[in-house]
């Protein structure tokens, strides 16, 4: 089986950068701040493959570059350098024809596309759920309206059909469709995350990006959201990129895991191996400090 998504050397610098930025930062230097020019090396040389129907975890403490990595993958933040390729199989035919040579199973580097094309790719197959529901939802627009907005972006036009779709998505994420006309600001944190998930699923994405989606929720609410994610992943055979600082979440959802620190991947492997036989000093610390 071939990867659905191939990411190569994703790098993001905040600052003007200098020739020393990469050498002077990273886990060995114990900083992501270049001492010479003050640039933040948020993410450097991070590569991964994500396979169809696979759940890949990215774990690391706050500031390690996890969100930056996801934002680049979602085309929200422009990468300083790096490459991103999608398997042509998962793209609608017209996009596949535009973005890849006939005999190439992968697209050209998506990071160099125009933002219009990137939006097309995103609408065709990505969904994103943020830790902060304010980033993923318009809090004053009805929940159904939030979903309809996304459907409009994906080319839907018929109001009645959009409403039906919104109702069924909300039902899937365990929100009563009777509440679809209420804005998310009326809802609890756990419900807001479920509306976000419903919205993220509205375009039938193959690839769902989840950035700390249960962080900050009560434990019992976390459990429900995680169970929901697990069952949706199975039902729709989704590929997930799961970002979390919580090894419990990673252990529950992910078969493979990448560990990040100061913008670098320090270690990657089978999740049970990462948890039971961590190789890198930092991973060992992380595992040892599990609650």
């Amino acid at each position, binding site marked *: 089986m071939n990867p659905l998504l191939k990411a190569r050397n994703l790098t993001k610098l905040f600052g003007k950068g200098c020739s020393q930025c990469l050498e002077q930062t990273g886990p060995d230097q114990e900083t992501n701040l270049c001492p010479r020019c003050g640039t933040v090396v948020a993410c450097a040389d991070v590569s991964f493959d994500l396979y169809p129907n696979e759940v890949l975890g990215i774990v690391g403490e706050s500031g390690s570059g996890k969100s930056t990595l996801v934002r680049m993958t979602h085309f929200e933040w422009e990468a300083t350098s790096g490459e991103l390729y999608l398997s042509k199989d998962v793209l609608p035919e017209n996009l596949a024809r535009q973005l890849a040579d006939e005999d190439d199973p992968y697209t050209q580097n998506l990071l160099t596309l125009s933002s219009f094309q990137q939006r097309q790719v995103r609408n065709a197959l990505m969904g994103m759920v943020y830790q902060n529901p304010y980033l993923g939802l318009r809090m004053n627009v009805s929940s159904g309206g939030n979903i309809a907005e996304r459907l409009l972006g994906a080319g839907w036009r018929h109001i009645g059909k959009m409403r039906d779709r919104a109702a069924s998505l909300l039902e899937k994420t365990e929100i009563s469709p009777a509440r679809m006309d209420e804005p998310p600001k009326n809802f609890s944190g756990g419900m807001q995350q479920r509306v976000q998930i419903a919205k993220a699923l509205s375009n039938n994405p193959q690839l769902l990006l989840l950035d700390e989606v249960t962080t900050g929720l009560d434990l019992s609410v976390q*459990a429900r959201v995680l169970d929901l994610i*697990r069952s949706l992943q199975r039902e729709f055979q989704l590929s997930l990129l799961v970002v979390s600082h919580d090894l419990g979440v990673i252990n*529950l959802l992910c078969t*493979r895991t990448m560990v990040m620190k100061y913008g670098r991947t320090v270690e990657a492997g*089978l999740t049970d*191996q990462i948890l*039971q*036989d961590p190789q*890198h*000093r930092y991973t060992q610390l992380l595992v040892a400090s599990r609650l």
Partner: protein
Amino acid sequence: MLTVERLSKNFDVHILGDKRIAGCRQISFEVNEGEFVALSGPSGAGKSTILKCLYRTYLPTEGKVRYQNQEGKEVDLARADERTVIDLRHREIGYVSQFLEVVPRVPALEVVMEPMLSRNGTNPEEAREQAEELLRSLMIPESLWDAYPATFSGGEQQRINIARALGWQPRLLLLDEPTASLDRDSVAIVLNLLKELRQRGTTMVGIFHDKNVMRATADRVISVGTARKESHV
């Protein structure tokens, strides 16, 4: 089917002042298709480490784990890439220990059905029947089938573990003291199930701390520890 060659595992603990802990050293043995081989030795000799290296929960430090897969292709489990290992775990190699390793908030019956559905592609009705039969034979009361195993007693959890591990009939099954906290009757039941599984062709490598249990099940015992030599039952 399995040839372990000079397998060693060290744990390099970088925290708390860089220590190196020896897990197992220079272990070599072979397992033929259809065989049931037991690993024996004093506690701390590295038996569980060996099994976890075979399953790749531990990353071997040195040596080879040559595994002949279903298609007759050789894979070095010590070095195989993660996707290959995931695939083998999904299709051929099972692991069961005395500790409950299931997803929380999934009812017992589903825990047992899940690998049959996802790995064997058994249809749901058939999987349910097989799972019920297994749970019944393991004397798990019907009232618990819809409950979450995390709330079960140690012995019940262990039997759920076993049911899950046996139900999908893996080609190679690694067993780490699966009967450790079971009462005598349950042990007898489990041993019977293992016997049946073998008759259907599953190869096994197991650790049993009870010598009688070991002798009752294994064709061959491999000693791990100071002497580290092979002996026959």
